[in-house]
């Protein structure tokens, strides 16, 4: 018994050693080969399919993978100490697969470039790098893929790349380093740092690629007059399973030759995040348009809701107030007030310098808007871009509550008032009102009126105050007087009497978005109470 188990144990151990050696051999072979082709340490790890944190310390990871760390690695790599670096020849040993993208030199250059840009102007905790890489880089990867297939045969797949693709590696390697050095967090919606990289040989290689493309895909080339060589095409079509090594070799070397020049950092362009600020506005004035009202190049009204809100909210997020888009859940006419809880709106602010809004700051903005005496905003808050769909559904589907001041030609009677108490919903057909017919198509739209409830002003029996709940998109003024019979039925046709509308207020919009937020801080609230 003891003997048997000892034998089994020995056997298992033996197998383990073999596997260990095999795996070891392969990694070592691979790395040795890559090194012979002038591939840098980081890219060696890419071909070893290293993951996230494993790129942090190249030597350590290589050791873990039982790969011998040799001089070449140290010389061409990040671990180089300043005194060892030859003063002028810092560029030597440019990696033949990443063209220096993962070198420390490049990191320093990139960092310096970012700091020299408008970076400091942005008050963002989150950043994202968007690097535009030359196509040469993709060709280098393909050449190495072919080379590895030749060297290691079937062990290298023809459909799936043998390395961690450059794009992914940028995320795994460059992103964490740059984020750490700038003390920022990564976020796809953060400040976008657009980095443009080019390579000296790019044009020349693209020319060759056009020829190769005709050669490799003759069928497509036959009917496509102009072949667009794109990064996407390279990614999708250029794999050993689709392009023969021999065809490729007619134009490019396998493995790729060493290069003299590293990638060149051509430009850094910053694009702040798109920030959405939502709230609800109320409108007190009957002489204020929704957006600037311009006719024949002349302003008809001095100010607008849009401008008042942007004026007070915008500067916190951007210098370019003209780039801000104002959206709201519907709109009211110039002479209509918007009361109650107000109308939901959103400001879309592109290239924002900051993406947060403190309650204190929001409250100050709300107070500043109040000083206009015409518009008031509440519930001011930064919202996710995905929530913007809410405002559009609010525009089209939600119930709207109105209060209309209407005038009869004669004093009201109980009979008339009774006819205007309609608790159940009814449908109307409404033609495009004449007042907008010159710029909108002629349609007859069915609309639902949910309820009508009329009251009379005390001491003024011709003046009715009618509360109307309608489907969004109903023209209320026309619903009241019927507009020469173009809206039917109308309150006028229901009564069989002339009735006109003198004033209108929006008193509610049935959209519970954005969420209610009380921006007045407790301390400030206390202060007002004392006053």
């Amino acid at each position, binding site marked *: 018994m003891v003997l048997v188990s000892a034998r089994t144990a020995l056997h298992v151990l033996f197998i383990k050693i073999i596997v260990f050696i095999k795996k070891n051999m392969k990694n070592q072979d691979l790395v040795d080969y890559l090194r012979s082709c002038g591939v840098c340490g980081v890219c060696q790890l890419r071909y070893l399919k290293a993951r996230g944190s494993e790129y942090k310390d190249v030597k350590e990871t290589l050791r873990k993978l039982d790969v011998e760390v040799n001089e070449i690695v140290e010389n061409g790599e990040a671990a180089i100490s300043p005194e060892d670096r030859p003063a002028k020849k810092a560029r030597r040993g440019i990696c033949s697969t990443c063209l220096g993208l993962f070198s420390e030199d490049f990191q320093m250059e990139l960092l310096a470039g970012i700091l020299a840009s408008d970076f400091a102007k942005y008050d963002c905790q989150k950043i994202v790098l968007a690097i535009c890489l030359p196509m040469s880089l993709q060709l280098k990867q393909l050449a190495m893929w072919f080379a590895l297939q030749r060297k290691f045969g079937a062990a290298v797949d023809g459909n799936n790349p043998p390395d961690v693709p450059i794009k992914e590696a940028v995320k795994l390697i460059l992103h964490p380093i740059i984020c750490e050095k700038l003390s920022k967090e990564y976020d796809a919606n953060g400040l976008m740092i657009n980095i443009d990289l080019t390579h000296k040989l790019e044009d020349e290689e693209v020319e060759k690629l056009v020829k190769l493309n005709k050669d490799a895909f003759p069928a497509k080339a036959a009917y496509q007059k102009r072949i667009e060589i794109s990064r996407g095409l390279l990614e999708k079509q250029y794999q050993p399973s689709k392009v023969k090594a021999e065809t490729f070799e007619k134009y490019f070397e396998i493995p790729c030759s060493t290069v003299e020049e590293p990638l060149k950092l051509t430009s850094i362009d910053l694009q702040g995040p798109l920030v959405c600020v939502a709230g609800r506005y*109320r409108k*007190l004035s*009957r002489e204020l348009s929704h957006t600037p009202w311009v006719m024949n190049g002349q302003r008809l009204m001095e100010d607008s809701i849009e401008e008042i809100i942007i004026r007070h909210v915008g500067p916190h997020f951007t210098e370019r107030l003209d780039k801000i888009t104002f959206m709201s859940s519907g709109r009211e006419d110039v002479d209509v*007030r918007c*009361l*109650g809880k107000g109308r939901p709106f959103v400001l879309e602010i592109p290239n924002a310098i900051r993406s947060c809004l403190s309650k204190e700051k929001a409250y100050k903005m709300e107070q500043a808007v*109040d*000083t*206009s*005496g*015409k*518009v*008031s905003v509440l519930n001011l808050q930064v919202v996710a871009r995905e929530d913007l769909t809410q405002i559009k559904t609010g525009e089209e589907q939600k119930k709207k509550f109105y*209060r*209309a*001041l209407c*005038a009869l030609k004669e004093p*009201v009677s*109980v009979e008339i*008032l009774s006819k205007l108490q309609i608790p159940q919903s009814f449908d109307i057909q409404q*033609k495009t009102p*004449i*007042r*907008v*017919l*010159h*710029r*909108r*198509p*002629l349609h007859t739209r069915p609309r639902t009126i949910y309820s009508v409830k*009329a*009251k*009379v*002003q*005390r001491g*003024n*029996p*011709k*003046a009715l*105050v009618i509360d109307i709940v309608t489907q969004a998109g109903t023209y209320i003024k026309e619903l009241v*007087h*019927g*507009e*020469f*019979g173009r809206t039917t039925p109308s309150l006028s046709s229901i009564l069989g009497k*002339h009735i*006109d509308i*003198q*004033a209108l*207020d929006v008193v509610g919009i049935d959209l519970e978005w954005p969420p209610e937020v009380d921006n007045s801080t407790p301390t400030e609230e206390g202060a007002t109470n004392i006053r």
Partner: protein
Amino acid sequence: MSVQSDDPLEPFYFEHEDQVICGQSVSPITDGFQEDYPSVVDRFFTRYYYFKGDVPYQVLYHSNRICLVCLAPDHPALCQGISTVNFDIGNVDRSQNVVKGKGKKGGMILQAESTLALLTTDTGETFKVPSCIRGKLVEVNTALVQEPKLLEQLPEGAGFFAILLPKIENCDAIKASLLTQEQYEERLKIIKEKKSKIEISDDKQDSLRTEEPLQIVQINLET
């Protein structure tokens, strides 16, 4: 019994709810009530007139250049009683007009003299209602076909025959070609005088002339 409980309107009185916006108390909607509030036509339209011979038509010109073609209040048919309204004017049926999109594509292009509709009166007279202006036909009021009598009762504007959209660049010329309210009244006076002269000189009276005194009453009311 108190006066209050006697008031049948008591359950219907409007109560304003207080609300503060921008630090101001929101005024009740009833504050805006105006006893002499102008009508829809007065608010948004300018009245113009077009004569076809001695027969007057009205063009309600909206500030956005949309035009409503109506009978002038002194149109003889109104006194004779309207019998039928027909948009099928023989060679073409105006009620078949279809417009598409913002540009009202496909709308019939009409000249001022183009016949818009045919109108017959209870006395058997037929009037060719002219388009009055040059423009694109947007909409015809087919309700008049079913109930021609509406024309006699409807408030101003509601008895429109059609909605036309003139070209922006033609608007000045069109307005100049039409009569303003003042010019219209002036013209009516001249026609009246002319007719009364004929009446004096000529004893033969046709049906139209018997209606004249009525018309004069109307004009006096208008002015």
